[in-house]
């Protein structure tokens, strides 16, 4: 079903995106989303590779996973400070 999904950016990802969220067009495979982000924000790939990704609060890894309209994706790099 077409529509949009929301992607949330945290920590180091915001250095590249300059914002903490945006809407992208669904459906989209997880792997395609990563490629799109690298095109839009060159250099973000390094941070994404070190990050965890969740869809609707569930940890996901499968690049073939399809993100649907209304889903909420989060890219969460590790925070190490303390």
């Amino acid at each position: 079903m077409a529509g949009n999904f929301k992607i949330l950016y945290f920590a180091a990802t915001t250095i590249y995106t300059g914002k903490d969220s945006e809407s992208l067009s669904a459906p989209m495979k997880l792997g395609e989303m990563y490629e799109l982000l690298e095109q839009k924000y060159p250099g973000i790939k390094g941070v994404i590779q070190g990050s965890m990704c969740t869809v609707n609060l569930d940890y996901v890894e499968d690049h073939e996973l399809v993100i649907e309209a209304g889903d909420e994706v989060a890219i969460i790099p590790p925070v190490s400070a303390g």
Partner: protein
Amino acid sequence: MSDTTNHQRIIALEAENAALKARIASLEARLQLNSAPPQSLTHTTPTATPELSAEEYLRYGRQLIMPQIGLPGQLRLKNTRVLIIGIGGLGCPAASYLSSAGVGTLGLLDHDLVELSNLHRQILHTLAYIGRPKVLSAIDRLRAANPNVTYIPHITALDKENALEIIQNYDLVLDCTDHPRVRYLVSDAAVIAGKTVVSASALKTEGQLVVVNKPTSSEEGGRGPCYRCYWPRPPPTESVVSCGEGGVLGPVVGVMGVLQALEAVKIISSGALEGQRAPASANEAAAGSPGTEGPSKPEPASMLFFSSYSPTPFKTLRMKGRRADCISCGTPSDPALKITASTIPDYDNFCGPGPDAVLLDPKDRRTVMEVGEMIGRENVVVVDTRDETQFGITSVGGSRNVPFVLWQRGGKVPEEFWRAVEEEGNSADPQEEGEKGKGTKGKEVVILCRRGNDSQEAAKMVMEDPRARDWKVTDVVGGIGEWARKVGGVVEY
């Protein structure tokens, strides 16, 4: 005397007698409280104690009456040894609550000394301890509130040589450290030693908390993911930001440290750690019997994510279990990759160079004194790569601000830089000006940042760009910090 008078006198004396007996009982109770010796002074090796002292029943009363704790839970706390690695923004509140809750033995590990800039968030440390070890500062404060705990100082950095040896003397570890290098080491060592780690972190306005290697069920060996299961690849070096560089709000890191202590109390009091060590006495084994409330079935692994400026600040992210092929806690397809006691990796190689790397040739670096004298000359432009907030705190007069984030985004020298240098060049004497926008030969562009790290990266990028081929490009050793100390006119922060 008449019978009535005698009778009245007897009643009065009986009343007085009763009041005096009550007063004696109350005074005796207070005397017992004040004279009971704190147990930590009478022995140095922690031993399992089958019961609590009268003082401890009163001290822990408010948590003892909770069904989640009860007497069995409190005894478990008393018989558990917890190691807190890092006595900073996370470690101070964590240590405070664990000590107050009656953990029997608390190890505190940190090589660092207390500094003034710690005090906004490292709440155990005080002015009296500036320049002295954080571990001693913390123990002093903690002992003043609860001397029943055995405090063990470890004034050392954690490294691959000592990690296993130290960790195996404890039942539970709290990772309150500040660099991915140490976090991977703690996780790897804990997996090898069979210990659970409550790991948290905080930066700016966000915090994260995971439990590493958590016992997941009553079956032998059932364990949750390790740090590498969550983050198999380390973050790129340039994205690793410390509290000193990125900033942090005290309450943000404070919340995460308190949550670490809470998670530790939950794990310990529920009896989840009991599978990993033999009870020291029959009484302690008896205390492991049911009676404490807790989750009736094992909770799946999760990460607590705190985003303090979000309308929904707390999120729980659901994790999968261990990765089957994890090189630390799983079975990698190439057995040579598996991390064991004898093959603990080199974390500097894994995570990249430390924060104060030197990228530029010494001939391309200026001292603050040199630049202090050069400033104001027509052919010199000083560009400051700190962010707007920091530039707004203090800056060198005449310098131009081109925040480093603009350099990172896009991976090349930003237009804002060329514009700033052009504008500075144009403000010079037009007779001396060469081609408009290109500046004269002999122009020097000096790049400045807070400590002299980002400035090297930025300078390197400019040097490699053909648009700067006629210029001398340098950076400033020690940045604004050094400028404040040696030249003046700016403030160190």
